[in-house]
């Protein structure tokens, strides 16, 4: 294949990775930014979203597009409630202590994973894409659905950004992130903000998973990769920074697509990890993060 089309294919693949990654990492970043806790179970919320998408689409059994839209609404809502419940039952009781919550969310990770294994099973199960249009380029064919994933993710990111910057909810969230005690002094119900943010973070991961599941199936171990990549993205972009998360996701997604296509996938992973190390050494707060207060 000639260089031009090869690069185009690599870029498209990288953009799909980046789109899903940006949504997932944004969830992780929000939770850390506002609550200052590291949610190790984030990848399992992603997995849960995919598994529920399969369950909803299968239970409805109607037209694929209808099942998919239903999954896109139901799965994030259910995952959000699970997150809300675990926030109430676990994180709040630990007073959001950073060390204790890491251990608690590791436990949560295993509980969710094993429940999925028990009730959903070990198979990888596919969800039919809402439409199966194949974009025919002169050099190769490309899935139209994949292109729509990029668009959907961009729309969701813009929506999240609008919520954060233009609404009262966003203002309250930013205030809590900026200074928890001051926010409390201004009668902001910090605990309710925390609960909401934790649920929102999980819902973003679940939405990303519903988008990706027609491409890559639901499997009970699928949460591991997104968790690792989200951490990489969040560290590079700066914890709690929306702009940083999007930029880092694009960086990691595109470099993964292009480097792994022209060189090797192992080299792409090497470079991403090296980038994390470099950022941690030279700019610990991340590219767009502010120094911890």
């Amino acid at each position: 294949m000639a260089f031009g089309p090869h690069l185009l294919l690599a870029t498209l693949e990288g953009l799909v990775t980046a789109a899903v990654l940006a949504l997932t990492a944004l969830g992780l970043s929000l939770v850390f930014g506002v609550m200052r806790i590291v949610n190790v179970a984030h990848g399992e919320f992603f997995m849960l979203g995919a598994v529920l998408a399969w369950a909803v689409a299968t239970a409805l059994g109607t037209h694929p597009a209808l099942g998919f839209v239903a999954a896109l609404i139901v799965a994030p809502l259910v995952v959000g409630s699970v997150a809300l419940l675990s926030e109430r039952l676990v994180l709040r009781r630990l007073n959001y202590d950073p060390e204790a919550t890491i251990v608690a969310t590791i436990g949560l990770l295993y509980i969710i994973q094993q429940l999925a294994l028990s009730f959903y099973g070990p198979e990888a199960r596919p969800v039919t894409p809402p439409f199966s249009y194949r974009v025919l380029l002169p050099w190769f064919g490309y899935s139209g659905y994949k292109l729509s994933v990029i668009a959907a993710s961009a729309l969701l990111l813009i929506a999240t950004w609008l919520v954060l910057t233009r609404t009262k909810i966003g203002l309250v969230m930013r205030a809590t992130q900026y200074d928890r005690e001051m926010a409390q002094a201004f009668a902001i119900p910090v605990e309710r903000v925390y609960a909401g943010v934790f649920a929102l973070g999980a819902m973003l991961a679940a939405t990303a998973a519903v988008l990706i599941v027609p491409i890559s199936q639901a499997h009970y171990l699928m949460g591991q990769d997104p968790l690792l990549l989200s951490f990489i993205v969040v560290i590079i972009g700066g914890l709690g920074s929306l702009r940083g998360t999007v930029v880092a996701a694009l960086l990691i997604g595109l470099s993964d697509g292009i480097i792994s296509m022209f060189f090797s996938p192992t080299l792409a992973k090497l470079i991403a990890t090296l980038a994390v190390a470099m950022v941690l050494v030279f700019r610990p707060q991340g590219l767009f993060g502010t120094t911890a207060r």
Partner: protein
Amino acid sequence: MTGRFFDLTNGKASRRTILKGLAAGAGLAAAPGFVRYAQAQSSAPMRIGFQAHRTGIGAAYGRWYERTTAAAVKAINAAGGINGRPIEVVIEDDGTDAARGAEVVAKLATQHKVDIVYGTLFSNVVVGSAPTAGELKIPYYVVSEGYHVASGKLNRYVFQPGITDVRAQVTSVAPWIAANAGKKITMIFPDYAFGYDHRDYLPPALQKAGAEVVAKIAIPPTESSFTKYFPQIPSDTDAIYHVMVGPAVLTFVKELGDFYGSSGPKLFGFIDSLEAVDINSPGLEYLDGSHFWEGSPRYAQADDTEAQKAYRAAVDIDDNGAAVADAKDVSTAAHMFGCWETLYVIKKAMEDAGYKGPEDRAKLVEATEALTEFAEGPEHPQGKKVFNGKIHQCFGTQNISKLEGGKLKVVHKTAIEDGMYEPEADYTKQSL
């Protein structure tokens, strides 16, 4: 609870609590499994430790290996067991993890005091566990299909008598590929041991048959997206040979379909990655008309033997190779027959050795090595096998099936001789 039952030091234990404690103790003694140890060893069960992939990447295989094992044990016990003793299976989950695999072998041998260990599929777990089995001198019968047993890299205690190895499989099917799929082949295989067996033994076998491998594409086992590898497929490729164990296979097929449309190369694949997956799943349409290797056919065939029919009924699978109780629960039919056959080999070897207990393990190893042939029949429903005691490996027939009309139909059966190769090892020279 027990603490309260026996807390007599403060003198407050009432008659009631003591009675409760006694009742619990009596219940324990009456529970199944307890009495057996009190009996003479001659009728005590033969304990087979089953290293099962209950969790981790091999869980779908593990579930069906368990079901097949249960069915075979039921059949053997109903017919009088081994040397008149029933089989008792002790299951330990290894998480499809090599390090845990070694721990499981040790636990089965030292804590559960099993007679032998059996049942492992994934090659990483076999390779990780074999040294422990060798150190503890406990016979270890795997159902893994990797070439590692026959290669001589493991030790005298490891056997693979119920399923053929990858080297024999690819050697058998290569002539058919060259004659029917094309002369220029691109290989896509997983970037670890199991894939390397394919990478190393397919090219020479194809060359012998007058075809060549034009590209070898190794894919990391955790990969979830494949489009980025497709530009590496040379445009003059006649056929793609794909073998990938992992849940991502549906993505692979779907992306291949998006990439090539209807004008792509032919496909020849190993069913391994589609085991436990409904072949009619959305996204797999692109496989229609392509060919697969199958150890034992998933779908009931018109010429199935009585033994094959009886075996399918015993393991509770329907004509489509799915669980009778749940049509969506698709089996790993191409591999799990190996559990059934391996258990019958163990039975035969134990009877030949006059096996009584762990002190006879060396005798059992020698008796297994002395086996040469297993006739087709209820004990070996997949077909006749030839066993080479020097490399601890069996040889058998392979099936090539075509996917059409939503079913896999066997179009070619190889001969046992097609898969034979010059042995590279001799385990019998190792000390016991």
